């Protein structure tokens, strides 16, 4: 309803039994605004934009030049590099959660009439979109310069979708870690103790090997994202878990991480109590 300001009526709040202000049960505007905010903030921080554009370009330059002189096939490592970009950017996107908490912004979201799952989804989709943006840039650069990447549009469509699911999963993982942290210092320890090994043991970098490593690699959800992307992207790549297993594992990873993120977000943290 758009009316002239003069005809706007304020209910008299002094009445004896005021009805509650209407609660809009539709949580989607909240999801949208939180997602949009992540993107707008990103675009307004010039160093972040340069970093995001620069990283795929530098990686692409270094990897393509570096592999030129070695006996390895860069195309084989390309999917793993994509997943690394997703991992790092998704995780760094959630570091902004710690900043939001420290700056006091998050407080106002926590007391808003928004279900926590909607808040979580909004923040995650913003972070995942940023990760996708960088990974897509890297993918385009790959297509411009590499031979042997799939050209079937159906396969490419699946690649993008699988990347989207994986980026949501990884952003949620970052969210779960960042939720209870009061400063960004601790994040670096997690980064090198958990996240980097997780990537190294995903089949991105070296083959599964033997013994206990096989177990770890096959228990690592990232393995399936990498294997799936490799099967879809690299012509003639058929070894490893089946494509449907890769899809199932990646989707399950995303669902579980999202559920954990929602659960975390229902818990208060000491960080909110810093005055």
């Amino acid at each position, binding site marked *: 309803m*758009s009316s002239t300001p003069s005809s706007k009526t304020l209910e008299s*709040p*002094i009445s004896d039994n005021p009805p509650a202000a209407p609660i*809009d049960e539709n949580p989607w505007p*909240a999801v949208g605004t939180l997602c949009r905010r992540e993107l707008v903030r990103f675009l307004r921080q010039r160093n972040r934009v340069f970093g995001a554009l620069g990283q795929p370009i530098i990686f692409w330059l270094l990897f393509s030049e570096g592999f030129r002189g070695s006996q390895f096939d860069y195309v084989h490592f390309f999917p793993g590099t994509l997943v690394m970009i997703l991992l790092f950017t998704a995780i760094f996107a959630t570091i902004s959660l710690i900043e939001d908490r420290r700056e*006091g912004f998050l407080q106002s979201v926590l007391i808003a009439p928004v279900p926590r799952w909607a808040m979580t989804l909004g923040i995650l989709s913003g972070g995942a979109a940023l990760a996708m943006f960088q990974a897509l840039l890297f993918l385009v650069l790959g297509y411009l310069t590499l031979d042997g990447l799939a050209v079937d549009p159906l396969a490419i469509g699946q690649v993008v979708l699988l990347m989207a699911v994986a980026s949501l999963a990884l952003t949620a993982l970052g969210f779960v870690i960042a939720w209870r942290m009061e400063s960004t210092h601790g994040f670096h320890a997690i980064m090198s103790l958990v996240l980097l090994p997780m990537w190294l043991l995903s089949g991105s970098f070296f083959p599964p090997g033997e013994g206990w490593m096989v177990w770890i690699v096959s228990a690592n959800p990232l393995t399936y994202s990498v294997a799936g992307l490799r099967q879809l992207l690299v012509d003639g790549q058929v070894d490893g878990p089946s494509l449907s297993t890769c899809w199932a594992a990646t989707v399950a990873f995303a669902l579980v991480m999202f559920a954990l993120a929602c659960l975390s977000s229902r818990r*208060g943290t000491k960080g909110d109590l810093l005055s």
Partner: protein
Amino acid sequence: MNVASAIAVEDVSFSYGPRRALDSVSFSIPRGEIFAFVGPNGGGKTTLFRLLTTLVPLQSGSVRIESFDLARDVRPIRPLLGVVFQAPSLDKKLTVVENLQHHGHLYGVTGPRLAERIDELLARFNLGERRDERTEKLSGGLRRRVELAKSLLHQPRILLLDEPSTALDPMARSELWQHLEQIRQDDGVTIALTTHLLEEAERADRVGIMHEGRLVALDTPDALRDTIGGDAITIRAAEPAGLAAAISERFACDAHVVDGDVRLEREDGHRWVAQLVEAFPGAIDSITFARPSLEDVFVARTGHLFRDEVEEAVADSKEAVR
């Protein structure tokens, strides 16, 4: 329970682990009132604020906000509250308008109604020309105005503000109060705020003095001052304890030492000043009298100087940060 109360708190206690922050606090705030919680940091007012804003869950006691029970109905309470936090909750990278839009979306205010509300509030808080500026570029006073506009966007019934005048210069502070009074008058909003500035609390309809987790006094500023018998006389002396005892004995009154000064409360302070100076020549370095202030009420109720408590609390919090 009183139907017309906006906030009714009964026997509420709260602990952070072993540390008790609120100890059996009860009060109620009628609709349309401006209520100030005053007290040093660590007195419990911020904890109370967190409880009322639904940021932390209730541990014991009961809180009613309008007709809702805080322990059971957090969801319907949230839209009723407009909150201004002590730490600015604006997104500095977003413009004034974007911050307001964001807030609207969180509270389910969208579309033409949101645009209308934003225009209205920008005009009201004289922010129209700054609408497209990022909030990081605004001064502290302007930011506070944006916060206030934001907190009112969804037409709350109760406005809660935590130390709203922190980091504001006296001009901006006085302007803030004009806005608060205007908001109460125009929208009939109930306002509850916390402050560690006693002179600020004087502008509220009623004041609750908090100390060490307890509500030690609650009334209008005038009524609180009237509980102090007459004027407050403060004497600086080389030997305050001896002097206090001598005054008490000679004039049959209650002179006591508070943080190194002798204090007593008497009617007709100016006459007493003359009498005391004559009665104890040489023993008095300086003597002042003043109409009782809320500070005197605080001293009378807690036996501590308010200023020292604030400084101590600040020192404590700095220690805690390290």
